């Protein structure tokens, strides 16, 4: 960061790159006469054109192609793509195969959340510039985080064929499915990880959280009987639920001049998807152990403080591990690894809960099974307005801070949401301008 002062009334702060987020972008905060004028989250990473180059490809390809959008949440892309394409083809996934999709997804939640909690987010609360500095003093905690992450990676690798960009997912199911005996060592590792996950909740619960209560709407999948991960209806905090097919009736993307990522609104307003939304809309669906861990950590049934998202992620890790163990415990090898999904002309919609929030896919295919149109709406794209709203609140309430402190606070506000700019278009140069 390089503070420069050009006149007594104007100062500009520049951060070369915002760290511990994914991708490339910038944040511009403008203050005029000591009051906040504007906040612009500027994603300048070039668009990636996935929706364009999916056109003309076979309907069977999106699970593998869209997985490449993200190295951390490829399963989310695979599952949302399968949900959408199976919907287009009028096919419901075989009930014997759904738990394996959920199990694979649990692996992704565990490793993605563990990485964010320990290596990206916790340093903010403990006053370290990065995880490496933190690791020197907090070795036991960081080792616990790495063990937790590894348990998630191994689960994803075991079901998905490899830890990054799994290759075992296909429309209608999987290329191969494990035997019950093969899952035993995975369960053993997960049982150890459950203790680490509970210790993680207790660890993050002890952090200091700045006061911030968000008032925008929340959007997350919801499902009867369990915490929604791989599928569900779309629930919202101020309105009735709707199906994935109605997503575009409510969520509209628009272009803003300062960003290459589209901004999404829910019925015209900003909204948030991700851990806070999931938890606030679905906390009663958590397992008793996860609910107890949340209560012990001081969480009520809803959580609207983005700084506490680290606690919610930790609770979700507990849930994901328990859920994985439950699925493994109930597991009977499905008779077939997949069911055929014959192509038919139509439009399909699919959504699932990526670690960072709701991920929506829509495909239109012709009678030959070729894709005519593809739409992918990512969690970070959806959250941009909410992140800007958080920034406006925090900057307005902290105008007396020195620019360097204000800059650090803005970076924390952004990291609360674990933005994946790579998925939304990539992050971050930060400028505070006082006029």
């Amino acid at each position, binding site marked *: 960061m390089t503070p420069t002062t050009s006149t007594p009334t104007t100062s500009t702060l520049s951060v070369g*790159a915002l*760290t*511990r*987020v*994914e*991708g490339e972008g910038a944040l511009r905060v403008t203050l005029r006469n000591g009051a906040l004028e504007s906040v612009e989250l500027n994603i300048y990473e070039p668009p990636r054109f996935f929706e364009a180059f999916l056109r003309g490809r076979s309907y069977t390809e999106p699970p593998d192609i869209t997985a490449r959008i*993200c*190295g*951390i949440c490829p399963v989310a892309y695979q599952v949302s793509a399968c949900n959408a394409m199976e919907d287009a083809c009028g096919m419901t996934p075989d009930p014997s195969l759904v738990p394996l999709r959920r199990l694979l997804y649990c692996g992704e939640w565990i490793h*993605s959340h563990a*990485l*964010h909690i320990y*290596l*990206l987010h916790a340093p903010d609360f403990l006053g370290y*510039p*990065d*995880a*490496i*500095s933190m*690791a*020197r003093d907090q*070795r036991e905690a*960081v*080792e616990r985080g*790495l063990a937790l*992450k*590894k348990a998630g*990676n191994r689960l994803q*690798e075991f079901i998905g064929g*490899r*830890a*990054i960009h799994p290759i075992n997912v296909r429309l209608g199911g999987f290329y191969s499915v494990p035997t019950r005996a093969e899952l035993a060592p995975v369960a053993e590792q997960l049982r150890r990880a459950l203790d680490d996950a509970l210790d993680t909740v207790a660890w993050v619960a002890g952090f200091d959280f700045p006061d911030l209560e968000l008032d925008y709407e929340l959007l997350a999948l919801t499902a009867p009987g369990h915490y929604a991960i791989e599928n569900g209806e779309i629930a919202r905090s101020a309105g009735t639920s709707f199906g994935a097919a109605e997503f575009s009736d409510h969520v509209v993307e628009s272009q803003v001049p300062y960003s290459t990522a589209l901004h999404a609104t829910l019925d015209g307003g900003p909204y948030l998807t991700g851990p806070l939304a999931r938890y606030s809309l679905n906390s009663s669906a958590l397992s008793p152990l996860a609910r107890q861990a949340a209560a012990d950590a001081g969480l009520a049934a809803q959580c609207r403080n983005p700084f506490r998202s680290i606690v919610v992620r930790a609770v979700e890790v507990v849930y994901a591990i328990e859920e994985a163990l439950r699925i493994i415990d109930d597991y009977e090898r499905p008779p077939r690894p997949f069911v055929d999904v014959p192509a038919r002309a139509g439009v399909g919609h699919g959504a699932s809960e990526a670690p960072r929030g709701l991920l929506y896919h829509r495909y239109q295919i012709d009678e030959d099974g070729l894709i005519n149109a593809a739409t992918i709406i990512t969690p970070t794209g959806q959250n941009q307005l909410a992140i800007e709203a958080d920034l406006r609140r925090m900057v307005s309430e902290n105008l007396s801070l020195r620019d360097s402190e204000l800059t650090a606070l803005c970076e924390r506000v952004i990291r609360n949401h*674990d933005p*994946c700019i*790579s998925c939304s278009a990539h992050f971050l140069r930060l400028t505070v301008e006082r006029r």
Partner: protein
Amino acid sequence: MNSPVVVIGIGNEYRRDDGVGPAVVAAINELALPGVRLVTGIEDPMDLLDAWSAAALAVLVDAAVISPSTPGRIHRCAASDVAAARGMSSHSLNVAEVFALGQALDRVPDQLVVFTVEAADTGHGVGLTPQVAAAVPDVVATAVAEIVSRSAEPHLGPGR
């Protein structure tokens, strides 16, 4: 399972020259060197912490995509030559960042040597291009020389 020396081949052998790391590991495997552990299939750079922890010497071999490129050209560097970590992102921990994290956790080898080989083709398919294939024996010879000279040091007996 710890050995005094670990050789780690990074890369995907189904992406042509990206497979040079595993090819060097396969060639060293043929030599059946005592006290040398071989690792391939690293996907997440964080897995390097487990691969090289407690080793006296870690040799890491990877393909390099450089423009303009001289395919088959070999580069050698040590941990101290790798640029300092600049702060992590959620998706792209590099070897330097993992090494720095490993140092903080006391999970680094005593010595790290990195060999990179400039690639000509990292497209789909198995098999190295002739220029990169020709570099493999040179990398193997240099790496083995490093291993032998390191093993000759008196404080590095087997089973360290």
